[in-house]
């Protein structure tokens, strides 16, 4: 396991290819969290196999980024290429949101605000069982609109679930606008700190920063890592919200929450990816 053992570029390529093949959106959200998932599965989460009961647990609470998880699981060798090609197919285990029936997925998600609660339960279980298992949960900044997130936050802090780490994909974008325009969460660090959490702010596209922040410490508090990310990271026109071919749409990052890529957009994205690090 090394800091770059799972290549974010390879994961991004899978995301683009599968989104194009299935002709679906949510591309911007997936690209936003790729580096976080690569850091987690490349260098942080201890899991010898998905069947290992003593493995660390992971909850992708922002389930709409499941394709990014599938990409990482594929690069881990737990999801085959044939399975990947069933993404968004009929009777497939690889839907837009992850299902626990798929090998390598610990918890299903798709409804925002539920992951942190399940993760807190998983962390509590590990602690009660005297296990060194850690639990990681990735949620979105807009997901912090959900009251249940703060129910879990209160619980985890009160019970000092030091083995629980939440990573917030802090990209400032939500489904119908910018978080600062919908329900402003600019002061997320202050909020989590006030709830009794150890709070870190990192560059969500820096594997070294993420890996360092996710390392175990002796701190008894649960840990939230607020990962500053860019929606659509890695594809410049998505980062800027430019709909290349759908010219009737105005420029807005939210476009790439929904849009599937045209062939031209796909070619441009792949070309850019090829030139990336």
């Amino acid at each position, binding site marked *: 396991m090394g800091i770059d053992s799972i290549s974010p570029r390879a994961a991004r390529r899978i995301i683009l290819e599968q989104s194009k093949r299935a002709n679906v959106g949510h591309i911007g959200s997936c690209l936003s969290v790729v580096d976080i998932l690569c850091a987690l599965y490349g260098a942080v989460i201890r899991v010898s196999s998905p069947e290992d*009961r003593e493995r660390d*647990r992971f909850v992708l609470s922002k389930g709409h980024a499941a394709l990014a998880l599938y990409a990482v699981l594929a690069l881990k060798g737990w999801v085959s290429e044939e399975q990947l090609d069933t993404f968004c197919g009929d009777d497939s285990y690889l839907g837009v949101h992850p299902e*626990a029936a798929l090998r390598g997925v*610990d*918890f*299903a*998600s*798709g*409804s925002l*605000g*539920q992951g*942190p*609660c*399940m*993760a*807190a*339960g*998983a*962390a*509590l*279980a*590990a602690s*009660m*069982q005297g296990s060194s298992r850690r*639990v990681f949960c990735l949620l979105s900044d807009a997901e912090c609109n959900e*009251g*249940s997130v703060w*129910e*879990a936050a*209160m*619980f985890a802090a*009160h019970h000092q679930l030091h083995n629980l780490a939440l990573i917030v994909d802090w990209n400032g974008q939500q489904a119908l606008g910018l978080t600062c325009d919908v329900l402003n969460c600019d002061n997320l660090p202050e909020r989590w700190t006030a709830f009794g959490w150890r709070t870190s702010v990192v560059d969500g596209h820096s594997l070294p920063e993420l890996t360092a922040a996710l390392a175990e410490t002796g701190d008894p508090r649960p840990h939230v890592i607020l990962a500053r990310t860019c929606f659509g990271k890695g594809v410049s026109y998505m980062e800027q919200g430019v709909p290349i071919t759908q010219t009737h749409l105005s420029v807005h990052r939210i476009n790439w929450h929904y849009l599937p890529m045209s062939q031209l957009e796909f070619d441009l994205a792949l070309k850019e990816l090829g030139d990336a690090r």
Partner: protein
Amino acid sequence: MDLAAADKRILLLTGDLGYMVFEPFRERFPDRFLNAGVAEQNMVGLATGLAEAGYLPYVYSIATFAALRPFEFIRNGPVLHRLPVRVVGMGMGFEYGHAGPTHYALEDIGVLRTLPGLMVVAPADGEQAATALRATALVPGPVYYSLGKSDGVAIENLNGHFEPGRLQVVRHGRDVAILSMGSVAVEAVAAAEKLAGRGIEASVGIVSSFNPDPVADVAKFLSPFRCGISVEAQTVSGGLGAFAGGVIAAEGLHCRLRVLGVRTSPDGTSGRQEDRWRKHGLDRNGIFNTALDLLGVATTLEAPVTAGAAG
């Protein structure tokens, strides 16, 4: 307590309720008791995470808060993950009478039985509740229990019998069939007794669980009758009456069913459970009058059925 003593996987989580109920458990199993605070959604989420790790968590609150507030957490947690979480809702129907409409569990069974992966258990008395808890302790999937406050009332001839997906027949008659569920079944039995005083013999069957549904038993129970009545302290759209009506239609039975339940929106009033039953025509007089009406017998000597009881 006995279950917890026999199975170390059992945990008890409460949403900050259970004063004078859980103290003995807490004393005996301090490491397996957890007050999750007034946060039922998180409590069900916690239970999902705990069950995934091998625990058997029982989560407890007043039925409306246990079943309705975290409904989607139950649906996407233990049901979707097929995990053995037990959701325990206290106070079925109108048991929290004076507490008012927020505390009336009138939809929990109807709502939760829409989830095929969730066994729904609604015992009619304390003895049956004890049997049901034991009988379902090792069910591999999730279970919802709608429990009544144990007030010492026992249903005659029920004798604590319980089996998932089965009907318990506690009285045999040939004139009319009465199906009931939950603690209001005591009124169904009392109504049958009153009917006997008028020479009308009623069969009484108790439904105590759904998923699996007691389809075969209820069909067999209703098939000899031209008239039947269902009695439940639930709204009529999703519970026992809706189920029984479905059985009658699907099996092509010639049984006319009068569904007694709650048909009106809260009007701001509250009162003792018995008062609420009476108001909605679920008390023994209401059931009795419905039976007479259904059978075409004059009701002159009995209390009139109130507007809320129109069946």
